[in-house]
Every structure is written in C-alpha cells, then in structure tokens.
C-alpha cells in the first residue's frame, strides 16, 4: 500500500533522488467516507533513526501542503513562474521524516462523502488526526517505533496540543500496541492558545511598534473582553453570553476602537510587519507610472493606490469574458 503512494518525480523538478516521498489518502472514518490527504518525505539523513514529525498549518481551514510542504519547511520552494520548483536550503527532512497532513476534511484535497462533516471542531479534528496517524503506521510500520513529534503554527496552537492529549489518553486506554503511538514531544510556532491573552498581546505589540495610537490602544484595553469576541456565524453553536454582550456599550466601544486600530495599521502585512505585501504586477506598474506622472507620493498612499487599482482590475477582470486573465492568479485578497 505504501509503494502505491510513492512519488518518484515532481513536475518542474524531476526525479527524486536524495529522499523517498509518498502521498495519498488515509481513511479516518469509513462509514462517513472521510479521508485525509498527506505528503510524507523521509529523512534524507537517517530515516531509520531520525524522528517522525507531523506538521500542521492552522486556519482553521488552511492546508499543510501550501504552508508547510511547499513554502516553509518542505524540500521544495516554488519559483515565481508557479510551474517549477527550487530546493529549500533548510528543509526539515534533513533532520526528521516529515509528514504533512491536510486536516480536517475539506481542507486541501482531504474530503468527506458526508457534507455535514464540514461542520467541525477541535474534538473531531484531534480524533481524526489520531486515526490518521494510526492508519499511517499500518501503511508504514517501519516508522512505528520512531520518536514521534507533533508540530505546527498558528491555529495548530489548538490542533497540536489537542492531538497530543488525544494520543496520551489513547495510549493509556489502548487495548493493543496497534492503538499506541510513540509520542515524544510537540513544537508550536506563533500558536493561537488563549484568545484573551493572545489578542491583548497583539494590541500591545501594535502599540509598542508605533502602529496604532496611544488613544486607540488605551480604548481597546479599557473596553475589550477578548474572551468573548465577534458575532457568531449562522448555524454555529451559540455562546451563552455573546448575543447579550454585543449590545452592551462597552462591547460597542470595543468594536469601534478595534475598527480604528485596523484603520491605523493600514494595509500592512500583519503576518510579518516589516515585510512587503503582495501587490499584483499590473497594479505595481500602474502605480509606478502614476508616481512618475505625479511626483513622489507618501508610501501608505502609494500602497492604497496600488490596492485600489488592483481591486478595480479584479472587477474588470471578473466582468470580462476572459477568465484566464493573469490577474486572477494574482488576487491580493
């Protein structure tokens, strides 16, 4: 079964020579027809002795292939043409065999034949991920005794510890060695852990980095309870206090100060405050032409202009009969 999943070459790269790679589906719930998609790259150092590392991107709803495998810690990085690959100089599979999992079902290529499975939370995500790992060990029994680490970033701050707990509890209640996993540790990066602490941490960070005003920062600190945020989505489970809380004056004030903070932050790359944002090439060149015509423009206005141009072009593109316009591949949203 494992050999059927083996990938011998990658388009835009060629044959895989320095490590083995596998990808495919593992069913986690046969009755529902739920299967999770994985990519597995063996360690290029010592796959027998090196640890096995599961990587999960966050979201919830984001793919571990797009993040982990293709642009963060996998063996490849995409070239700008989107059709060819280059080597990642620091792939984690120099040190561990790495397993990238698209979780929960409906993320990336993971699927379910039961449409209601799209409604999901932490408990089923953890249960399915453990079922996936047990299924993986059946397909790749040679890795059963390797040290297992769970890792990820962002909303994996929920996925990883919840899965670790599921495994620890599962090991305790296991009826046979087949139901156990050799979990050794976890790694989480920039993890969502506690909304109250994390969100207020973000406000403090923005203020300390001179991205929002004193008044806005103080307004948020005085009015916001980040334990209890935002309107609920239709069809979601209802938090008992939220509906009432949203009408209270402090919550309305909090909302206004948060809006003000968003406005003061500007069109920044919030995931890396000193990095540029992605602006489509067409908008860039129009904005540059505008600069040349009008003379120097403040940087913030420049970016706004570019974003507005790109929005306009996107609209024009969607109105156009030609849906293959390059702009559709460069959507900045």
């Amino acid at each position, binding site marked *: 079964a494992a050999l059927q999943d083996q*990938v011998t*070459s990658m*388009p*835009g790269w060629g044959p895989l020579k320095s490590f083995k790679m596998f*990808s495919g589906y593992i069913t986690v719930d046969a009755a529902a027809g739920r299967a999770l998609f994985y990519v597995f790259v063996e360690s290029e150092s010592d796959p027998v002795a090196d640890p096995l590392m599961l990587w999960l991107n966050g*979201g*919830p*709803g*984001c*793919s571990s292939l*797009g993040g982990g495998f293709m*642009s*963060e*810690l996998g063996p490849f990085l*995409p070239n*700008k043409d*989107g059709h060819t690959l280059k080597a*990642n*100089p*620091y792939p*984690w599979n120099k040190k*561990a065999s790495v397993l990238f999992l698209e979780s929960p079902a409906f993320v990336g*290529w993971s699927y379910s034949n039961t449409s209601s499975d799209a409604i*999901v939370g932490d408990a089923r995500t953890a249960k399915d991920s453990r079922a996936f790992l047990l299924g993986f060990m059946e397909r790749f029994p040679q890795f059963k005794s390797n040290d297992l680490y769970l890792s990820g*970033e962002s*909303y994996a*701050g929920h996925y990883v510890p919840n899965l*670790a*707990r599921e495994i*620890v509890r599962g090991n305790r209640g296991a009826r046979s060695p087949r139901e156990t996993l050799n*979990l050794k*540790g*976890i*790694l989480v990066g*920039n*993890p969502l*852990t*506690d*909304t*109250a*602490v*994390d969100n207020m*941490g*973000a406000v403090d*960070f*923005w203020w*300390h980095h001179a991205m929002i005003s004193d008044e806005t920062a103080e307004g948020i600190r005085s009015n916001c309870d980040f334990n209890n945020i*935002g309107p609920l*989505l239709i*069809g*979601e*489970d209802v*938090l008992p206090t939220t509906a009432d809380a949203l009408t209270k004056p402090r919550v309305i004030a909090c909302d206004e100060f948060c809006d003000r903070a968003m406005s003061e932050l500007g069109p*920044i790359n*919030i*995931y*890396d405050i000193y990095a540029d*944002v*992605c602006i489509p090439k067409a908008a860039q060149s129009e904005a540059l032409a505008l600069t040349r015509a009008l003379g120097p423009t403040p940087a913030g206005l420049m970016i706004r202009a570019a974003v507005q141009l790109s929005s306009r072009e996107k609209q024009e593109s969607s109105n156009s009969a030609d849906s293959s316009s390059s702009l559709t591949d460069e*959507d900045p949203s």
Partner: protein
Amino acid sequence: KYDPCVDNEVETYMNLPEVQKALHANQTVILPWRWTDCTEKVQYSRSDVLASMLPVYEELLASGSLRILVFSGDVDGILPVVGTRRWVSGLGLPIKSAWRPWLSPTRQVGGHVIEYEGLIFASVRNAGHMVPYVQPERMFHLLTSFLNEES
C-alpha cells in the same frame, strides 16, 4: 529572499493537473475541486476557536512524558511574541534556565530563550508568522537543537 506573493505561486503549482497526478491527489471524477491554500468550506466551531488551550497544556505537563517547544517569530503582528510569552509564563512552571539570547550558526542572535521544567520557549528574531519560511536557517538551528536535546 522573502517573496510576499509565494502563496499565489504555490496555488498555481498545486492546481497543475500533472502535479495532482504525481501526488495521487484529487483523481476522482466525483470530487474534482480547485485546491486552495485556505478554504471556506470548513465551518469551524467558534466556541472551540475561543477556548483556551491552557488546561490542555496543564494536562500534558502533568503527564510528564512530553518535550514541549513553543517558538515565536518576533515580528508577527497577528499572534505576537508578547502574548505567547505571557501565557507561557502564566503556566507557572519552575524556571530551569533564565531568559537569554541564543546564537545561530552564523553567530548572530537568533532570538531569545527561556527554559522551564517541561517546556522551552524561544523567540526567533526577525521572523514573522511563518517562521520556517522567513528565517529558515534560524528555525532549522532551533529545530535541530531541540531534537538533539541540546541546551
């Protein structure tokens, strides 16, 4: 070099038919769909998103069997180092080794680290949310040190 448009390139690549065939993905005629980096198909429980993970950490730490590394890119503005450091500290674990800089193989400060009983917290200097992408050398050094159980 940081490429702010990398997500677009990944999405283009993942939707090439030859890539999907090579990866054995999306090969049924019943469920062909466009691969996206993040999907709106999943309706995730908001109460779970808002739930604190601190009780889960307490249970994991009490099990005494796991090694835990929490790392944080220090220029991420969405889940910044400030909040992470607060909740880690709030776990109230005994400190094994106090806050100090850690050096990368190029002898630059790669970030700062504090070691508690059962948990290590390390910042990664000048890394955003996607630490392994933005600071690959520093992150790889951190990973290697952790897996090798080096200080």
